[in-house]
């Protein structure tokens, strides 16, 4: 069970959070056009390895927490507040 280090509350169980998806996509500017908004909503890298993602601490401080997590091993390398950057995801992935 994931133990997520909320930057506001400390280490908490995954059960306190709601997953909110890929944190690398950003909402396009208003005039960016249909393709950009299609990709924003639908297209995902879906990496097998390090993944920057949002977890919403709905059972706690209600802040969106940015988490760098490995989708294969479930290891969490870093958590950050919404406004803070994450370290660049390492290209390495744990071999299958």
């Amino acid at each position: 069970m994931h133990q997520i280090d909320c930057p506001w509350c400390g280490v908490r169980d995954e059960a306190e959070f709601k997953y909110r998806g890929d944190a690398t996509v950003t909402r396009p500017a208003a005039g960016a056009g249909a393709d950009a908004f299609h990709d924003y909503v639908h297209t995902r890298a879906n990496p097998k390895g390090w993944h920057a993602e949002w977890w919403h601490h709905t059972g706690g401080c209600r802040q969106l927490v940015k988490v760098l997590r490995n989708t294969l091993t479930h290891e969490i390398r870093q958590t950050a507040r919404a406004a803070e950057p994450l370290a660049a995801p390492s290209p390495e992935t744990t071999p299958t």
Partner: protein
Amino acid sequence: MSQPHRLATGGRIDRSRILLFRFDGRNLQGHPGDTLASALIANGVRLVGRSFKYHRPRGIFTAGPEEPSALVELRSDARREPNVPATVAELFDGLEAASQNRWPSLAWDVGAINARFARFLPAGFYYKTFMWPAAFWERVYEPIIRRAAGLGRAARQRDPDAYEHMHAHCDVLVVGSGAAGLAAARAAGSAGARVILAEQDFELGGGLLSEPAHDDWRKAQLAALREMPEVRILPRTTVLGYYDHNVLGAAERVSDHLPAPPPHGVRQRFWTIRAKQVVLATGAIERLIAFPDNDRPGVMLASAARTYARRFAVAAGRRAVLFTNNDEAYQTAFTLAESGIGIERIVDSRETSAAVEEARRRGFEVLPASEVSGIIGGKSVEAALVRSRHGGAARTVVADLVCVSGGWSPALHLASQTPAKPVWNEKLACFVPGTPVQAERSAGAARGVFGIGEAARDGHEAGRAAAAAAGLEGGATIALPTEVPPAATAIEACWEVKADGEGKSFVDLQHDVTAGDIRLAHREGYSHVEHAKRYTTHGMATDQGKTGGLVGAAVLAAARGEAIERVGVPTFRPYVTPVTIGAIAGRETGRHLKPVRRSPLHAWHVRNGAVLLETGLWLRPLYYPRTGEAGWTPILREARAVRQAVGLCDVSTLGKIDVQGPDAGPFLDRLYTNTFSTLPAGRARYGVMLREDGMVLDDGTTSRLGEQHYLVTTTTAKAAEVLEHMEFHAQTVWPGLDVQLCSVTDQWAQMAVAGPRARQTLQAAVGGRDLSNAALPFMGVAEGVIAGAPVRIFRVSFSGELAYEVATPAGYAEHVWEAILAAGRAFGIVPYGLEAMGLLRIEKGHVAGPEINGQTTARDLGLHRMLKKTGDYIGRVNAGRPGLMDPSRPSLVGIRALTDDFDKRLRGGAHVVSAPEDRHSLGWVTSVTRSVELDRWIGLAMLEGGIDRRGQRLYAVFPLKDEVVEVEITSPHHVDPENARVRA
């Protein structure tokens, strides 16, 4: 004589007390400290169950949770529990157990006929037959198979017992309380670590419990651990699953050793343990050897026979043969002999060993380079067939007990789940845990360090290292048990003694899988260990192949001509042993599955006879029937009151989100398809919000309470989702906007006062405040006081009538509600429930959940005028995708039955077609009601062509009930389409 197989002395049982129990109706006796299995052995019961497929007679094979054969139904009626291994069931006074999977009786089982046809029933036979004729599968073959399969019977009644969840954190979790576990717990505890020591048995000590010589050491360690305030000892607790981030799940059998849990007590407790470090001292499990008829009652693991003699003081037989490939098992022969059990032969598959010499010195008859090649006896062993491995005829050795030891496999299930891949150790002929990937280490026999002294030393080191890794260095040095290790000769793998002809050498006793089945799987190409497992069902029974899993893998390796480490073993998945579903579920099931949300007016609704209904988590009043009212009568009465006089409805469940901050307006502009920054303070506006894919997320009115202060209302169902949607966008998409959000749903009670007399009613309630159109026009917002309580008054209408919603802090809810009722009495006020509210909104043509179902756009719902032309908002771009602009998309219309015969019923979920027999659906009916204004069935529908079909006569068909109703397509606004009443 009672308990004829109870040894005269020894054991850890309490001979001073007799426990009475029943097995298959027979009255038997045992002692505290017995398991059901040891008590059965004490009473000379050998035949305990029938196997899954061939219904072969089976006895007791092990002395632990790895038991494949001795499964019973425990207890009776609502507490009946199938498939309980007799080897783990603690004996209690009055215990009732029954054998299973047999008919009419255990001794005479009709299903045993399967064994006669066994040659036609090899692994996977069912994949090759039962295919003709096709219709026979469901009708003939499968019902027979289903009845024959399964083991015990589940209780049909509700489980009378309770279960609970416990959460714990610790520095070091030690799993297992044998020599390694005790030493680890002490080492870690003495370093100051918070330790949890979990032991699946009811007594602590693991293998030490069969070693009286080390009992003082065991007691000393337990005494020391009990002195440590930060050490928690959990007996009867099986650690079942090793999850990510060093979280482990464990089931504690709190009351299973009692006839029933004590009043208010729980039966089992499920622990979620977050450990900084874990020491896995789970020991090792002895393996079987696959020799012909190795399943007969009386064939038993050597260590089990020793455990029964030493720990339980029972003789598993009178005359024993030991079949082994390792030195360790000789201890069993020595122990049994000390207990007065005759050792007829020791059969050793190896050419020679130190133990052979030792045994001969002690006067045992040893046959090296030999094997057991068969068993004589059906329901009980009568003799073993023994032969040289170099050839020659087998000789018959009369015996009633055959002890078998194929060596030991570390219990690495938890380590494997971490998921560290096991590694083959050729010297020990077993897999050992792989390099840890979580914060854990294995110790003692669990990693192939055998022997009490060695295991204790290993555990001590592991405990100390675990504490250090958790940040706690040091600790006392403890005395470890000394043990002079016998000059052991290495184990030599011996997996199978091949059966001749029809004999069966089982690798999986419970599922009746033989070595021959494994070879058949390989011949047919199911050669991968996972394929072989699935094809033969090897290792998939309740014991999960703990005693024969590796043996099967070895047989497969031999068939493939490959080394066993290349073949591997199937993946170990949770759970280590089967776990009670009730324990994992805990208390929050049945009626307590989800919390019940109640409106602040709930008590009033109950007192006033409301019929309540679960809607999501909420419990809401459907209607308030008067004496003698039934069916639609109260609903129609309440709705008429609203249309003709005035009604009062509890709408507290609506989501309410307080939005404040300098950028609250611009934020709402981006959230909604329409504009809120231009809304003057003191006014409300209806709004629609989309998901980013362009579908409608929710609707509701939002009021501006102040320059930087808005109150958003959401539908009841979407309250949580909308808040999350808003928080996500405020925090991550537009973090530059200065806006704060807070749910105030539970803080405010809200009630709708609706009907032509609503103003008079509210005016009477609110006293001096002017509620005229000039002072509080439609969509106006004001504050006031009702009966001394502060209220907000919103002039909004869901019913289509002149209406207000009055909000008051939740604590005043009933007070204000009663005051409005009192004020409205003169005007004929009635409370109305969810059903009348639904009726009114359908008449009015307001969309709700059935229309805003995540599949409809604003355009579909006739809300396209709500889409602002300029400025960005969520969903704007994707709502313009061509498919969503397609004019053929179904859109909202009204629908009206042509007949006023209420028996010709219009139903939600009906489809609309052009002709009664037409199969092409033009759309579907979303909401229906009996109309009080039109006196017929009416509804809302989503229809291809939408409002352009106004006036058309179509058919609402409901094939599920073979119903057809002729309907007319209308505007969705069945009542007051000009919207005059709300402005009255």
